């Protein structure tokens, strides 16, 4: 029970991380972006390439930072990957979304993003193959926090959790306390009016993609650290990340993080109440329940009000 709860929170922290970016991208660009989760894949693989490169160039970087499996090489690679992923997100926007945004409604964007997701995922497959890839062959053993009740956690996961919480706080403060944050929210609500209020639309769009891309790259790396890389990982993340975003309420950073935990915990506890085959449905049942009580998610706002 306790273990399932803790597992849920730890797994959820990756969803949370990705959902922070997702909620901002969705809020500002006003469409459900199915290609967002593919950025996890881009980030994960970009980090793989640079991790190998850095570790080969400077072998000293290749040692793990105890007690994590994270190496300095991977830390650096992750930073590079965040930039690369952000930049590719900006590129997709420039190539596709910007052009459609100019002419059509949100739903065309949704489906364009679906198309982009297909392309990205399969290009990754063509480049890296179907095989699973790992940053480190080592299996990071969980440490025993308590024997009764039995409680096991992996240091990497704790690290991810802390990172998610710190980033959440940072972004929430940015959005609610800085004029940059006001500008992001203003663009989300009314692009025209924000322009005449002196906000440069294209820089805000770029900023939000860079942030979203960077966060999802981090999520991708953290995920691959505790699991592994595969071209379909983005695809596997689409739903939980969406769910987290929606449960939290689109546009709310706190909501995204809480939503991530809720989805994680729901998956963790599902097995206690349902036969194992039904677990994939569990997060959605929770979402349904949350939305029935709060139709705009936990912290979401009614756009029409």
């Amino acid at each position, binding site marked *: 029970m306790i273990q399932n709860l803790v597992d849920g929170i730890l797994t959820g922290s990756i969803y949370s991380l990705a959902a922070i970016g997702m909620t901002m991208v969705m809020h500002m660009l006003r469409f459900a972006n199915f290609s967002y989760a593919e950025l996890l894949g881009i980030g994960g693989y970009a980090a793989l390439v640079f991790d190998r490169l850095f570790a080969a160039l400077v072998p000293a970087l290749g040692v793990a930072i105890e007690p994590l499996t994270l190496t300095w090489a991977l830390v650096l690679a992750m930073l590079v990957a965040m930039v690369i992923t952000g930049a590719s997100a900006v590129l997709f926007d420039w190539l596709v979304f910007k052009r459609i945004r100019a002419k059509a409604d949100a739903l065309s964007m949704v489906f364009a993003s679906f198309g982009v997701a297909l392309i990205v995922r399969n290009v990754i497959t063509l480049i890296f193959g179907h095989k699973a890839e790992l940053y480190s062959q080592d299996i990071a053993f969980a440490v025993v926090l308590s024997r009764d009740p039995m409680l096991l956690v992996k240091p990497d996961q704790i690290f991810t959790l802390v990172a998610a919480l710190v980033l959440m706080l940072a972004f929430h403060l940015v959005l609610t306390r800085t004029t940059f944050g006001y500008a992001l929210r203003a663009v989300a609500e009314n692009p025209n*009016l924000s322009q*005449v209020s002196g906000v*440069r639309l294209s820089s805000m769009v770029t900023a939000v993609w860079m942030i979203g891309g960077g966060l999802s790259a981090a999520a991708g790396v953290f995920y691959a650290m505790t699991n592994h890389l595969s071209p379909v990982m983005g695809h596997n993340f689409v739903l939980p990340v969406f769910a987290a975003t929606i449960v939290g309420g689109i546009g709310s950073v706190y909501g995204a993080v809480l939503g991530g935990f809720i989805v994680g915990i729901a998956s963790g506890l599902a097995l206690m109440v349902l036969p194992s085959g039904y677990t994939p449905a569990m997060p959605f049942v929770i979402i349904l329940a949350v939305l029935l009580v709060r139709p705009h998610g936990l912290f979401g706002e009614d756009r029409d009000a």
Partner: protein
Amino acid sequence: MSDTVLTIEGLEAGYVRDLPILRNVALTLRRQSLTTIIGPNGAGKSTLIKAIAGLVPVSAGRIMLDGAEITHLRPDRMGELGLAYVPQTDNIFRQLSIRENLALVMRRMPDRASRLQELLGVFPALEPKLGDRAGSLSGGQRQMLAVAMALARRPRVMLMDEPSAGLSPKITAEVLDLARGLTGQGVSILLVEQNVKQALRVSDHCYILAEGRNQLDGPAAQILSDPVVGEIYLGGKRVGAA
């Protein structure tokens, strides 16, 4: 420095390609003057203002601000050049608080704290609501906020699209007086109003727009007293309705 601050020549603009709403519109705004544009609903007044602010694509003609062409400038650059715009509808950010709305437009201003106090002095009704979501404001309160946002950056030229719509008579008078007063402080104002009589009383000059074209212009007082104009545009008497 020339006497005119804003010049529009042969302007053609519209929302969709090949369907101009404005045709060959010309207008000059004299420095420190209050010029009002009036005309029937759907005449193209808002479109004209939006075209100046860079929100509607211009297919022909030129817009000059202080001798520099701003025709195809991005809307967010206009503020830096001292041009402010109060839209007719959707003119506040509903999801942001009043304070955030104002902070947003003042974000590059060093003296934003004191400026905020000045603005609240002009619209005291906003003061108790500073922390509220702007979407919860009444129609008139929203209008006050919108004007305050435009004023915040101390523009040299202000474009105001029906700022008085929805305001109580008292506040309407105050806003119009405020506009008048601003011209004394070096601001030039281009106003669109349906509240014609009150607006013209404080204006220097008046343009009449109909069906996307210039119809008439002249000193405000003269337009106000012109019996024909009064009949057609000022609600003096009813003409030609089906």
